[in-house]
């Protein structure tokens, strides 16, 4: 009875784990929008396959041993071990684990060990209990000086920027929303003014502690090819987050506004220019995965049929390091803009800031 139960339980465990993890590995994670994140995701999926096999084999082997050698009055075989098995497991696991690890070092080096690409857009990310503030260098492209002694929450100078005396500071923009352009190299400079926080944007595959006393640089780039469709859909994040079908309908409406028939109609053809490619969409079908807020647009270009993801334009940036009682409320927002939109916004915001100071 017990061996049978054990076998059933272990098989249930393997199925219950492997099915969601392996079969839908990619779909389990929030959409990917960064370039380097592809490598991380691939590494996660590869690790998932390898560990999935090891996990299943080990659990099934355990089940098999329990079933096959359950006590029926037989005499156990007197075996003390097998040197070959030991050495094989040493080398097998060593090569496998260390090798797997080495494969992931490239993306680590890209993020942490290399200089950021020239001409990167620099944005300061500042954590404080329980809010994120972002600073942009403004039209002069330079951050102004800052000092903790200038911090004054009542006049909303949360970062202590020296607006008074530093000419570089005057056009600096401090905002509660992180705005980033897609398709450009971006470097965030992560800081904290009180306790340790952690800057985390799931879709970017970026996480870095914000440590008081340190400034930590993290580069990333948002993949613009995938960003095409959200411009097309142009639906507000709040709509996409709605729990009913209003999100789907809004997307449909947007496509139809652009003259693209959604779902069944194949009547109209629309040509869209992107920096990389001329897309000629003939049919578009929008499907909706409720749990993930993911939008898949199936398109056909001439004879070719493919898929593009529709993304939200705003992303959550939850604090990932315990920072006090309000930790769970500490989230920032990241809004992805097209480079043109970003430039226009940055220019105007910087001018506004300058005239204000």
């Amino acid at each position: 009875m017990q061996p049978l139960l054990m076998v059933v339980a272990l098989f249930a465990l393997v199925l219950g784990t492997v099915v969601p993890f392996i079969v839908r590995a990619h779909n389990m994670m929030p959409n990917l929008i960064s370039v380097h994140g592809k490598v991380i995701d691939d590494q996660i999926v590869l690790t998932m396959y390898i560990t999935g096999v090891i996990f299943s084999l080990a659990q099934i082997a355990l089940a098999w041993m329990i079933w096959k050698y359950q006590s029926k009055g037989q005499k156990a075989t007197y075996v003390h071990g097998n040197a070959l098995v030991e050495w094989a497991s040493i080398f097998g696991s060593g090569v496998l684990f260390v090798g797997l690890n080495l494969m992931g070092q490239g993306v680590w080096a890209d993020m942490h060990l290399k200089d950021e690409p020239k001409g990167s857009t620099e944005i300061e990310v500042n954590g404080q209990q329980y809010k994120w503030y972002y600073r942009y260098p403004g039209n002069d492209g330079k951050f102004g000086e800052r000092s903790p002694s200038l911090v004054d929450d009542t006049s909303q100078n949360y970062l202590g920027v020296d607006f008074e005396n530093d000419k570089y500071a005057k056009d600096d923009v401090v905002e509660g929303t992180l705005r980033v352009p897609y398709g450009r190299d971006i470097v965030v400079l992560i800081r904290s003014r009180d306790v340790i926080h952690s800057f985390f944007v799931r879709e970017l595959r970026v996480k870095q502690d914000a440590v008081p006393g340190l400034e930590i640089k993290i580069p990333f780039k948002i993949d613009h090819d995938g960003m095409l469709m959200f411009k097309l859909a142009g639906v507000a994040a709040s709509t996409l987050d709605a729990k009913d079908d209003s999100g789907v309908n809004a997307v449909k409406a947007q496509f139809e506004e652009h003259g693209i028939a959604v779902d069944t109609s194949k009547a109209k053809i629309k040509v869209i220019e992107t920096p990389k490619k001329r897309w000629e969409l003939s049919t578009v079908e929008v499907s909706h995965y409720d749990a993930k807020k993911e939008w898949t647009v199936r398109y056909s270009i001439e004879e070719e049929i493919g898929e593009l993801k529709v993304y939200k334009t705003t992303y959550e940036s939850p604090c990932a390091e315990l920072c006090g009682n309000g930790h769970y409320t500490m989230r920032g927002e990241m809004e992805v803009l097209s480079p043109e939109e970003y430039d226009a916004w940055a220019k105007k915001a910087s001018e506004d800031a300058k005239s204000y100071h």
Partner: protein
Amino acid sequence: MSVAHEVDEEHEVHVHQEPTQFIWKYVFSTDHKVIGKQYYMLAVVAVVIGLTLSLMFRWHLATYDPQHMFLSPDTYLQVLTMHGTILVFMVLTTAPLGGFGNYFLPIQIGAVDMAFPRLNMLSFWLTLLSFITLLAAFFVPGGAPVSGWTGYPPLSAINSTTEGMGWGQTLWVGSIAIFCLASLVGAINFIVTTLDLRARGMTLLRMPLPCWAWFVTAVLALLSFAVLFAGGLLLILDRHLGTSFYIPAGVIFGAKELNHKGGSPLLYQHLFWFFGHPEVYIAILPGMGIVSHILATFSRKPIFGYKAMVYAIIAIGGIGFFVWGHHMFQSGMSPYVAVAFSLLTMTIGVPSAIKTFNWLGTLWMGNITCNSAMLFALGFVSLFVSGGISGIFLGQNAVDIYFHDTYFVVAHFHLIMGVAAMFSIAAGTYFWFPKMYGRFMNESLGKVHFWLTFVGVYSVFIPMHLMGLWGHPRRYSGMENAFLSNPFIPAMHNMVTAAAFVAVLAQLIFICNFFYSMFKGPVAPENPWNCTSLEWITTSPPKFDNFGGVEPVVNHDPYEYSVPGASKDYIMQTDPPEAAPAHAVGHD
């Protein structure tokens, strides 16, 4: 320095008179068996408190409603912090090492008591003092700390960081410091006992695997708690004497710049994790030893690759000191160092894989009896695999970028460190209860306990991996965040909570069974499991001096089961040499 000892000093065996008064016999006892039981009982009390706390925050998460929160955000974090601290220190460190180790290490190596019985008593009472100090944190103004069991500064270093960070945090640090002292005393005792007090014939490579595990664990405790002690000391200085070890310049609280300058929050993390990682092995190594022992006994087979198992324990302990940085990949530590830590971390997979292979090898071609002890031991193997596998993700610095501080981490360390270690404690209890109390525990209740726990814990922690894959951050008391307000997350929280209630309430069955059987269980003979190690040659429970005034002599390896040509299917370690046919004596 060669010193001629007086002759009477050569006798290490402490021949005490058995105390007769209740207080010296059961309370301030120097008998390792009584102290072992005291440690075990302390762990039972701690586990009841710790698991109750976990049910409180699980209930909070399942019924989460911003308007009517079951726990306020600060209470949530207090409960969370105390849950972690109580379980890591007062259960996972005390029960397998202080409890079983104290009781069975001297008996398994054939000693009359620990090397320093009075220090042993001191160690227990310091642990109790530490536990009381920790619990006192609940009752001081401001309540228990909210900084998590890791207590990262500056959050934990400055009272004004958040509400409720007053005396509670100080008591927390004080409790940890006392615990460090207790562990230091205990570790010295374990190491000296293992090396000095072994019976005649008990070579190091004839010690049962639990003894090896306790020995290596004691070495880890000796070296790691010393660093935590220093780290905690500096935290107290920062909190109360105006130093700035962990507080850098320019820190702002209440819109005011603090005067502290010159410290580093990373310094604490280094000191903490230099202890913290070996601590994981302090919790799990004794479990590995106990489970190996039980697997061999109920498979009626010698342990597969005994020497490899010993070397694997030593390797895990040794490498365990050089991997602490994998807790800090995202901390702002040098990214070059992270690469080294990551590679070293992966090499720990090697001895872990050896252990798993050898456990399976021990079952292979065996004669397996699935009683409660064995079921928990088998469950341990399954959990060790499951929890170890997710470590392959987290040990890779690149992959950890995504998983760090999500529920994936929570699921990982609960499976490998929490639940697996608990399974080994349960397995050890069902196995050794007849020896400790002279009675059996109820088998049917034991099986019910196993199945509810086994299914329960997997139903708790496998979904948690999924939530981590989704990017659910740890230590969130609410789901105000847009992402978490997603219908998927509350559904998962409900499921996990339901499973957690099943798994925790199942422990009540165990506790009832334990105390009922202590008085009413069927009487156990000397060696009910036909096991080979030395605790089974003495009475159940053992006499005050363990072996009734005779010194056992060891002639055999620890796991001589099913030896071909032998008269019975096991050869006690103390059986005469001729009990094993000459050709059959195994070497691996």
